[in-house]
Structure formats: structure tokens, C-alpha cells
């Protein structure tokens, strides 16, 4: 098989480019600590409201400067639908769903995860600046999907 030298050059550059992109992504994950949601364990979706930590949804300080926000997604609201967290603190969002799939995306940030019945979702983020962000259910969850939203107020 003859490969034209231009084609060889093009393919060589392509491989270098793809590997370079992947290198950048590995750095973002392991160098900068930007992690995706992972397997955080399962939960009985019928007993969410009686299973810790979802038996008391809301914000709590777990250690100095560290906060946990426990949230339940249900058709068609977040419980609670408004939370207040301090700027500069390490905030861990913990969520699940009591019914169908829901999305949990905080606009203007990289906080973005799925709420899946039976699974526990967890993501840690630090808000640098005070301000307000929408929490948006971004996965179709039925007739009222577009009215399902909440708010994070960073103080």
C-alpha cells in the first residue's frame, strides 16, 4: 500500500493532536483535580426520604470551610429549591431522584450531574465569587420538566 507523503504528514499530525488533547484532559482530571461523578453507592429509590443523608435535605457544614448540600430531585422540583453557601468554601452536592431521571446543572459552573433513581450522585465545587446561579433540571422528566429549577445563592 502506497501512502502519499502528504497523507502521512496529515495522519501524523492528527495522531499528535489527538494525543495532545487527551494529555490536556488527563492533566485537568489528575493535575487540577476536576473529577467526574463516579460510583458513590446505591439507594432504595422508594425509601429515599428515610435514608440518610436524604432524610434531612439541605446545607450543613461538615468541617471548617467544608459544606455538604443534600438535594432530592422529584417531578417537578428540587428539595430544597434554594440553598445558600459561602464563597470560597468547598461545597459537595449530594443528590438522588425519587421518581424518574432528573438533571442537576448549575449554570455558570461545571457542576453538572444526572440524578438517577437508585444511584447517589456526588460532586464537589468551590464557588469563587458571591452571586446567584440557577439550578436547572436539564434531563426530560415529563410534562412539567421546564418548571423544575432551583437556586444557589453564594454569599
Amino acid at each position: 500500500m502506497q501512502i502519499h507523503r502528504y497523507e502521512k504528514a496529515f495522519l501524523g499530525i492528527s495522531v499528535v493532536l489527538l494525543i495532545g488533547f487527551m494529555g490536556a484532559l488527563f492533566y485537568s482530571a489528575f493535575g487540577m483535580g476536576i473529577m467526574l461523578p463516579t460510583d458513590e453507592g446505591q439507594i432504595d429509590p422508594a425509601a429515599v426520604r428515610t435514608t440518610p443523608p436524604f432524610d434531612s435535605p439541605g446545607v450543613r457544614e461538615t468541617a471548617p470551610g467544608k459544606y455538604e448540600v443534600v438535594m432530592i430531585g422529584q417531578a417537578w422540583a428540587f428539595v430544597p429549591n434554594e440553598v445558600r453557601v459561602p464563597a470560597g468554601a468547598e461545597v459537595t452536592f449530594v443528590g438522588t431522584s425519587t421518581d424518574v431521571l432528573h438533571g442537576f446543572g448549575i449554570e455558570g459552573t461545571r457542576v453538572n450531574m444526572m440524578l438517577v433513581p437508585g444511584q447517589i450522585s456526588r460532586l464537589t465545587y468551590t464557588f469563587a465569587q458571591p452571586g446567584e446561579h440557577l439550578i436547572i433540571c436539564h434531563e426530560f422528566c415529563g410534562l412539567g420538566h421546564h418548571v423544575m429549577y432551583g437556586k444557589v445563592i453564594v454569599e
Partner: protein
Amino acid sequence: MSTTVATLPAVGNPVVHDPSGFDLPRSHKALIRWHVYIAFAAMGIAVVHGLAQALSYANIDVFGWFPGLKTYYQGLTIHGVFNGLVLTFAFANGFVSLAAARGFSRPLNTGLLHAAFWTLIGGVALASFAMFTGRSSVLYTFYAPLQGHWTYYLGLALLVVSTWLTGLNIFVTLRAWRRDNPGERVPLLGYVSVATYAMWLLASIGVTVEVVVFLLPWSLGLTSGVDPLVMRSLFWFSGHPLVYFWLLPAYISWYMMVPKHAEGRLLSDSMTRIVFILFMLLSIPTGFHHQFTDPGIGTGMKVIHMIMTFGVFFPSLVTAFSVVSALEVGGRRRGGRGVVGWFFKLPWREPALTAQLLAMLVFVLGGVTGLINASYSVNQVIHNTTWVPGHFHLTVGTAVALTFIGITYWMIPWLKGRELWGRGLAVAQSWIYFIGVLIFSRGMISGGLEGLPRRTFRAAAPYTKETWDLAGVWTAVGGTLMFLGAALFLLILFMTVFFGKRNERQEIPFTETAQIPARTGWETKLDRFGWYVAAAVVLILLAYGPYLITAFPPAISVPGFKLF
């Protein structure tokens, strides 16, 4: 480069088995034609809904005008199923059947052709019943535990079965050809047709298990619950390679037919085969990149699928070189000079070519945005925002759909024995759609970067952000132009079928290659499909095995919700 392209001998042409005149039985032509009609009838219904959805992003609510439409999401389900599954499956079944018949220069199996068509019709009928009566407004991804009607699941399953029957037809044609031509290299056009369906048959196992083993019995009340995460994972097992099942028929055209319209030549026979082998190997073990933000799946698995997705980008980069170089040969033959001068010398007045050249240009943007979607941590910024439909209206919505339109501009005239009606209008149609999608995707992509959620009835949402307004206007303006482009195409198709000038003396275009396939050496092993399918199975087991072992039998059981 053009000086190296020799004229190919007519005898033993490697691209198709017999390069002289080719015809199919009338009944075969009619069946393939009806596949195309079904495909574009589906598109016609889908784009009406698409227009309404695009307007919703500019806060314009026209849903009161749709008779019988209960909700935005019912329309969105119809839009997704008719465009993403019916248009693409029906067109692929028709077009790739014809490509295989031409490649092997022999007719396909009549019974299987009939079976595939009537299975498709059955599937469309059942799914339509479920969708139009509002029984299954669960979108084309039908994520459990939202529960659709059993006719919806059975209808979609039949659509998949119709692709199997088409694949089977292509495989028995390959077998018959091999029996008659022992020791010969598989003709290239037949080769790519077989590879496309071999990939998809393997890929469709996931969604088949999801629907047949879990969702169908569950929707009939035979089982009490399903595991939502396992269902979602089975869906994306098939859902990402589905992207390549949309795309590969377009690639068949780009490699094997488009250069012919421009008097070009494909440089390498073996490289083309390697590209399709790579798609067979790498299309499937990539599904978790749609689930980067899912709980319950370890980051290790996600990293593996990210690497595989970057891998499957490579054959598309090879394609970019091969197809552009083949076109360059044509542009230079026509007097084009300089680095880009040849591009403008291509026959831009040829409707079949213009549609597909514009589709290719758009696909560059589709590829770039797709790679961003696959980019692990970067995905968190755009997941489930309008960025994603902004991306896939560039890929399946244009690279594929506009290519299918371009193919139709020569294929229906050939199948029907009538010349294309309104050639000038056909060229204009492609440009209108092209400009439309660029504006539309500009809106969706910029809105997505600002967090605008996808699959959301924005015109009725109580929350908003200032930065979404302009993005929504772009989306609506571009979507309107796309609708106009699609409507013009349907007019041209209708006029061609009924009023096109009769002409039975037309040819199926196929590209010749500069290098004849090797008779000896390792390259002959490229025709051993069985090896590559086996290797693909191994890769799938490596990429999905660790998850499947923990996921089966499913531990979670959730009853159905009908919240639509």
C-alpha cells in the same frame, strides 16, 4: 498529485464487480424507492415540529396551532424518532442496499428486501400510533422509568429488525458473490456496505436487550420494575454507534460516489477498507462518554471510553484527507490551481454534489464540537445544554441529512427513470439549509455555553437568563431557514417523481481508485470480515465487561412513571 492518477483498466474494476451497464429488477427499484419516500415523509413531519421547537427557543409559542398535539414533548418525541430513527434507518436500508447491489453487480434477495420494507412499515405504524395518541411522549431516548406504551417499544424494535433484515440481505449477497468469485478481492463498494451493516448489527445488541428483555415486558405489566441506570447504559451501548450508523452511509457516498460527480479519483483502496474496519472496531466501546455525568459508573470506565472515542475520531480524520484529495484531483482536472483554487472549480451547479460538499463543510464543525463533547472534564460544561443539539444538527442534522438529500438528487432519478426537476432550485435548497444550520447551531451552541438546557420548553419556562435571548433568536431564525430548505427539497422530490422528464438512460455514479487492490500480501486480509468482527467483540468485552459484571443481574427495580 493529479499526475499520479492513472486511468483504470475497465476489466477487473475493483470498485464494483462489473463496471458496465447495471440495472435492477423493477420490483427492487420500487422497494428501494419506497424506502426513500418513507424516509423523507418522516422528515417532512419531523421538520414541522422542529420549526415549532426552534421558535420556542425565541419564546414564540405556536403549539396551540398544532391539531392533536398535547405537549411540547410529544412533538419533540416525534421530531427525534422520525428524524433520528425513521429517516435514517429507511434511507440507509434503501441506499446501502442499492450500493451493495451495485458493488457486487448482482440483485439482492427479493424476499429479504420485501421483509425489511414491511417490517419498517410495521415499526413506523406502531410507533406512530404510540406517539400521535400521546401514549409515549418519552423522547427518542425513552429513558426509564418514564414508561411508554408497549406499541412504542415494539415499533422501535421493528425498526431495528428492518435494519437487521437489510444487513442479512447484504451479507447473503456477499456470500453469493464470493461463491461465484472464489479468491477475488471484495469490490470496494460492496465492502463498505457490508462493513456498515456489520458494525450496526453488533452495535444494536445493547438496545435490543434493553427493549426486548426489559422495557417491553415491563410496559405490558409482566414485570414490576427496571433498573434505570442499566437501561441507560444499554441504550448508549447502541446509542453512540448509532451515530456511525447514521454517518457511514454518508461516508459511503463521500468516498464512493461524490468524487465521481467532480471527476475525481480516490487515492487508496486499502486505506478506505482500513477506515471502515476501524469504525467496526471502535464505534461501540465508546458509549459511556454519553454518561460522563452519570452516577453509578466509575471514572476508570469513563476514562477508557474517552480514549476509545478519541480513537474513533481518527478514521474520520483519514476520511477528511482521502475525500478531499479525491475531490482535489477533480478540481485540478477542471483547471483549478493553487492550494484552494481547485475547490472553487468543482461543479457547484451539480445539485447532488453541492448538497454533499456543503454537508462536508458543516461536518468539520460537527467533528470539532463532537470531540469537545467527548472531552471528559470539558463535557461537564456542556452536558445536556443546547450545545449538544447544536452539535448534532451539524452532524446527523446536516452532514448526514444533507448528504441523503444530495444522494436523492441522483438516486430517485435513476430509480424512477425521470430527470431531476428544478436543478437550480435544488442547488439553492442546499445553500438555504446550509446557511440555516450555521445560524441555528450558532444560537444553540452559544446558548449551551451559557447553560441553556436542551429538551426544554423554553417559551413556557419560568426561569431565564439574559444571555439566552440572543441565542434563542439565532436558533429560531436558523431553524426557520432549515425548515424552508427541507420544504423546498420535498417539493423538488415530489415534482421529480410526478413530473420529471422521462429518461431511462442514467447511471449510478461510482468513484474509481488510483490504486487497484492488492492481489497478494497482507492487504488481501482486509477482506476477512470475520476477524474484525471478532476483534470488535473483544474490545466491547474489555470496555463494557467490568461494568456489565457488576450491573447484571440489575439490583434496582423501579416501577414505571407516566408523567407526560
